[in-house]
């Protein structure tokens, strides 16, 4: 599943694949116009040094990351980027699962909703009913 980091001056916004698919279905012309997403703090050496954060192995300083994210009021921070891969640290474990888990969609007749957020499982009723219809259910994302 591909997620996207939307870069605006001095800060990033994380868009889940579901947000992007939703925007594509709604024919949003540019990524910059996609609604939603989550604020992402870009960690620099200064913040890392002042908070004692390990940028290479974040799990070694997990508690310090948690304190820093809570203090700064964000759920995500970007610790490194190389070509098309980034390393991000999430405040809560479920946010990590959402980034790594599979994508789903609903089979609504009026509209299609895309997930991983909120968490859904195949076969359940689409939690975003009624905008997609009244009987739509969740199925794996088929592209």
């Amino acid at each position, binding site marked *: 599943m591909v997620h996207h980091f939307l870069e605006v001056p001095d800060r990033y916004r994380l868009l889940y694949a579901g947000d992007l698919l939703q925007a594509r279905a709604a024919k949003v012309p540019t990524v910059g116009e996609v609604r939603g997403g989550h604020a992402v703090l870009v960690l620099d050496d200064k913040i890392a040094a002042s908070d004692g954060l390990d940028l290479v192995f974040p799990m070694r300083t997990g508690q310090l990351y*948690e304190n820093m994210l*809570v203090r700064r*009021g964000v759920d995500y921070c970007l610790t490194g980027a190389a070509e098309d891969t980034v390393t991000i640290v999430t*405040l*809560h*474990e*479920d946010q990590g*699962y959402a980034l790594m888990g599979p994508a789903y969609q609903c089979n609504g007749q009026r509209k299609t909703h895309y997930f991983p*957020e*909120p*968490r859904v499982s195949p076969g*359940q*009723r*689409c*939690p*975003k*009913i*009624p*905008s997609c219809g*009244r009987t739509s259910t969740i199925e794996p994302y088929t592209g």
Partner: protein
Amino acid sequence: MLTTVLDRLTGLTSKYFVLGAFVPVLVFGFLNGVILYLEVGWFRAWAEPQLSVAARAVDVVATLVGLAVVAYVLWGLSGFLRQVLEGQHLRRESRLAGFLRGAQLRRFRAARHEYQHARDAAAGIAAAKPHWVDQLVDAAIKGNEAHAGRNSYDGQPGNAAADALATLRRRRERAEPPEPLEVQTAVAELGKVLAENDIDTAPAALERDRDDLYVLLDYAEDEWAAREAALGGRLQARFGAGAVAATAFGNVGESMQSYTLSRYRLNLPTFWSRLQPLLQKHQEFYAGLQDAKVQVDFLVSCVFLSALTTVFWVVALPFWGDSVWLLLAVLVLGPLITWGFYLAATENYVAFGELVRTSVDLYRFELLDALHLNRPRSLRDERLLWNAMQLVASSGQPWVDLGYRHDDTAKA
């Protein structure tokens, strides 16, 4: 000079002795020397020449050797000292034992209550979440059908649903799990709003808050599950399954035994010494285990040395000393430092206990191989086997019979 002595000691004994006993004795010997120097004239007269460049080497060496002997005695007593901290030498019926056990019982009950609350909340939220989602979907359909084109929800404070959601968001901002009742209230209140408004009609506040509530439900479910695991681990690492011991340190010791007993029916005090030689084959693991043990021994030594230092000087300074400030400093700092060492020793004992549990989990079958016994096929068989082994090892029960294996098939 000191480096040479330390090198010699390291060569003659293990580094574990040097770190676990000699260094604490050296540090506390120095600390006591400072107090003696400040307050006792004859000691000052002896010590001042030692501070000069032309120090009397014989005196210094004699002092260091004396400290090494004290350290060796302390090293020999380390097991006993650990037992003292575990409260094993307290008379069970004594008032002090009762008082200490009462405090530990309160700690245990609080930890167990916290764990049980987390467990119930995790189970309750996980079970209720699909129904809550259905409830919200049904309410949205009802509102869409009955009030098509009408939506008066603006999500502003003062609205019961918005306030209930704000409570959940605050919890998330503080990295706290929301209480199940708070989640239930938010679902109920937003359900009412959904049933009275058309979510497909602007403004978008209703859709935004509903979507956020779904995410908050996921958050609540995950946070409680994580909390249950963390508190369960803490309870397991710090308390045994049976009656509580008189001290926190003792309860950590109990936790090791109750883990192996409850999981495998393996009585740790009986089999630990038999397992240790086999652990030595796994050099990296064994080195880690030894390091953890020496950290515990170091801190246990520090607890007793700081306590003895405090008691000695509190008694001696009123007679020998001239400074009230030094007496006050010992009275205040001594117990604080001793308590600090005790807390650190307990924390390190927890870490050591984790390694002990790990070593039993990973290497207990090697002990069966070394004893030429068949490896059990299942956990139930294993429990029966360790139980039988315990009967043989502890009381030599004549009616217990176990088949031996003397070839490689023992490992099959």
